């Protein structure tokens, strides 16, 4: 016995046709056995029609009008004594072609020296679907292709892939997109044009309180003395920072101090009177070249001088 499917993988809801043939030299069977079908654990049922081919082969054909399961085992059987015997089994898969992956975005990390891209894969296809991050290097306008970069294949079921430093030109544009592929089709995300260093993800500097007891810092009421240094791996970048502070009182708002340098040995913040304790945070961005704001540093809790 042998089952043939019109297609082994279909769209969910589409029809599929199956045939089961028994060759005439299957000596243990009747000459014209009745061929039956079973889907999964369902009942045995006859096919739509059964015929004898010129060479004596028996053939039964069945049409499944709508495939509703993502995975179906189809059995072909014949009666045998008081029971039935399975002659063959086929596996029918169903799902959807992939939608275009969306929301592709990338960040360049200086510690791992990798450009990490992530995306949303779109609705479940119910079929093994491969995602590939594709890219090529280009000149300023992203119109022309220079070298294409090795495809990046994400680890199992991760919607993220990272390109190693050796495949990157950090200061040259590249075009990046995601391709999704399964047995029912291929689709591509919109293309991204970026220079890896322009999406660098810096870490904030470490904000430190200057010890008020040191002679260097003359005491003055309602003030705080601070210092910070840029995050070491991003030190070669020209940066601009901003500081925010908030009195630890219910409903208090943050106050922002912008356009600060990336390094300060002795920064004075005065005019603080309303609360005994203030929370302070700092973050930085590459500037004047393009960049992304770092996250805010962990909050520092400080008491202004009295």
């Amino acid at each position, binding site marked *: 016995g042998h089952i043939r499917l019109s297609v082994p993988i279909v769209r969910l809801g589409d029809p599929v046709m199956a045939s089961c043939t028994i060759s005439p030299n*299957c000596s*243990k*069977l009747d000459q014209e056995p009745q061929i039956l079908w079973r889907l*999964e*654990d369902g009942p045995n049922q006859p096919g739509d029609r059964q015929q004898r081919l010129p060479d004596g082969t028996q053939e039964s054909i069945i049409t499944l009008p709508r495939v509703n399961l993502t995975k179906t*085992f189809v*059995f072909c*059987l*014949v009666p*045998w004594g008081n*029971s*039935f*015997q*399975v*002659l*063959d*089994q*086929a596996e029918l898969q169903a799902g959807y072609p992939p939608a275009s992956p969306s929301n592709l975005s990338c960040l360049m990390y200086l510690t791992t020296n990798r450009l990490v891209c992530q995306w949303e894969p779109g609705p479940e296809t119910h079929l093994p679907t491969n995602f590939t991050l594709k890219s090529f290097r280009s000149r300023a306008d992203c119109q022309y292709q220079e070298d294409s970069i090795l495809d990046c294949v994400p680890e199992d079921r991760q919607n993220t892939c990272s390109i190693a430093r050796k495949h990157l030109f950090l200061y040259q544009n590249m075009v990046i997109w995601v391709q999704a592929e399964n047995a029912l089709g291929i689709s591509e995300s919109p293309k991204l044009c970026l220079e890896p260093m322009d999406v660098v993800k810096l870490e904030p500097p470490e904000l430190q309180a200057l010890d008020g007891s040191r002679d260097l810092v003359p005491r003055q009421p309602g003030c705080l003395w601070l210092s910070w240094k840029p995050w070491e791996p991003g030190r070669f970048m020209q940066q601009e920072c901003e500081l925010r502070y908030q009195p630890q009182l219910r409903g208090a708002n943050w106050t922002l101090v912008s356009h600060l340098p990336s390094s300060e040995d002795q920064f004075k913040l005065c005019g603080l009177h309303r609360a005994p304790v203030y929370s302070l945070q700092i973050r930085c961005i590459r500037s004047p070249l393009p960049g992304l704001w770092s996250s805010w540093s962990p909050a520092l809790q400080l008491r202004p001088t009295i």
Partner: protein
Amino acid sequence: APLVSVTSLPPPLPLPRSFLLKSLEQVRKIQAGNSVLLEQLCATYKLCHPEELVLLGHSLGIPQASLSRCSSQAQQLTKCLSQLHGGLFLYQGLLQALAGISPELAPTLDALQLDVANFATTIWQQMESLGVAPTVQPTQGAMPTFTSAFQRRAGGVLATSHLQRFLETAHCALKHLVQP
């Protein structure tokens, strides 16, 4: 106390108790792995009824081993050990022929095959210790060849259900020997 009560036969051989206990444990270990494999074949491939695969088993030529000499009525220890070894050796080969059955089942199948092969070795070494082993180990006969994934899975269902019945008989016989 004599282990069997059949007369006009050579006196029963003394099987070490530790051998019997270890053999019983191995039977139960193999039974456990075998059950898991049968359940997986049913759950994953909907092949839950070995009785529906008899015809296929015939056409594939899936062999079955006998333990007739181990039945408690007419236990002949040397022949029983020899049948036990022969059966385990046969099923070990059959399980090996199933290699490639499916990635999900491979770990269970591999573990089972090793357990069966190890058990066969245990029996053989005991036969050697008793001086009742033939001078050459038996060689494996022709194994079925499978031409489709379905045939291999169906072969798996048949091999494991035959092995299950074989082990039930073996367990009963060993139990009888350890607590006569």
